[in-house]
């Protein structure tokens, strides 16, 4: 159940002198869907390309299905499904030809599922890829990736350009597949609303760094957003500050404090503190706002420094 499908160690990639990925340690277990969130340029696509073996790391490394990502065995390469920008099929290709090609590349390819998924969008096998709308192309690529029954799926904005119903349908099929096959899935996206319905874990990338990687159910249970005066000291142990942001004379603080987080907040900050439920989008924005991470570090790793600033 808890087999590691993906494991990176100090994974780094430079473009020139610019670090696209900086010292990344990430583990993904089989049977889990991980939402890879980050603003544009955070390093999401670079990470997926590194894991797929399309790009070599500058330092550190990654293991996918037990293989070094630079030297994937042919057998394991067939077990990795990829949907990454810039790897689109030629426009003249007919859908049935694409399905046949995919079937020859992926051993577990489920032609019946591919047909069903294309049928959901009334796509004819004889249609040419280039004649489809942007959303239809996405759906075709998503359908082929799902039908491949891969053990690892690396998806870059798989729902981009799809209408809301199709986005939900795509992620619904993804969940079915993960439950049935125990695939490990990494979905890079910045549409939080959709992925929140299906993700098991969230990994937040910002400027090449992994700021947060946590189980989404744990976050819902253990994290609260509180509203305190900007001059108040930040909460201390056993409460952990994940992020904080000042607006005027008020400060929003995202606090992690175990299953009894609300009681602990009341203990430390007083019962009248305004406590809000966990909201992924708000935490994401706080973590990745320029003010919070201007020097490339998480919002408030050093409480003393912050408190000194406030005083």
């Amino acid at each position, binding site marked *: 159940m808890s087999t590691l499908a993906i494991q990176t160690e100090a994974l780094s990639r430079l473009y020139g002198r610019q670090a696209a990925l900086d010292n990344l340690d990430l583990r993904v277990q089989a049977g889990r869907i991980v939402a890879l969130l980050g603003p544009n340029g955070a390093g999401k696509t670079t990470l997926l390309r590194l894991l797929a073996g399309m790009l070599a790391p500058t330092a550190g490394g990654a293991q996918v299905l037990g293989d070094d990502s630079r030297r994937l065995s042919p057998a394991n390469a067939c077990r990795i499904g990829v949907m990454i920008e810039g790897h689109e099929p030629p426009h003249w290709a007919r859908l049935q030809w694409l399905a046949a090609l995919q079937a020859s590349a992926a051993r577990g390819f489920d032609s019946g599922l591919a047909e069903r998924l294309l049928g959901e969008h009334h796509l004819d096998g004889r249609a040419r890829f280039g004649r489809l709308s942007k959303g239809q192309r996405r759906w075709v690529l998503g359908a082929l990736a799902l039908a491949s029954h891969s053990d690892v799926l690396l998806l870059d904005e798989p729902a981009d350009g799809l209408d809301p119903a199709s986005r939900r349908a795509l992620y619904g099929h993804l969940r079915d597949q*993960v*439950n049935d096959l125990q695939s490990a899935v990494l979905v890079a996206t910045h549409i939080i*609303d959709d992925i*929140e319905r299906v993700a098991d874990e969230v990994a937040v990338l910002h400027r090449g760094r992994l700021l947060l990687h946590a189980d989404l159910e744990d976050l819902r249970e253990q994290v609260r957003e509180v509203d305190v005066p900007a001059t108040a000291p930040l909460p201390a142990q056993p409460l952990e500050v994940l992020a904080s942001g000042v607006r005027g004379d008020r400060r929003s603080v995202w606090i992690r404090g175990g299953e009894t987080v609300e009681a602990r907040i009341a203990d430390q900050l007083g019962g009248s503190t305004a406590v809000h439920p966990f*909201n992924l989008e708000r935490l994401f924005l706080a973590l990745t706002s320029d003010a919070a991470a201007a020097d490339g570090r998480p919002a408030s790793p050093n409480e003393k420094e912050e408190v000194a600033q406030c005083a």
Partner: protein
Amino acid sequence: MNVRLDHRSGEPIYRQIVEQVKYLIARGDLRPGEQLPSIRALAAELRVNPRTVVKAYETLQHGNLVVMRHGQGVFVAENRGAVPAAARRKALVGMARRLLAEASRLGAGADETLDVVRDVSREMERGS
């Protein structure tokens, strides 16, 4: 099973399942001894990770609301008799301690508290 999830409410999904199953049991929509969907089936229906359903069922079992029988499935607990005497005593001792501690904060002794418990019990019997 009629369970509706709100992924944006901030409430853990497993707890939403727990609360709604509790409600279905309290309303009598789920009867004592009735079988609940299997972990796999409910995960597929709600499109959530099976681990989330496991956690929900375990929480319900911990609260003596359901019984998980290995290899057979998950059933709504038969009322009362389902809790073994030792566990029942342990739970009651905990409740009594909390009640007496709260009562003493109000300045009430054990005798006064017990009198109230008896009165309330009589009222509830008459009411039902």
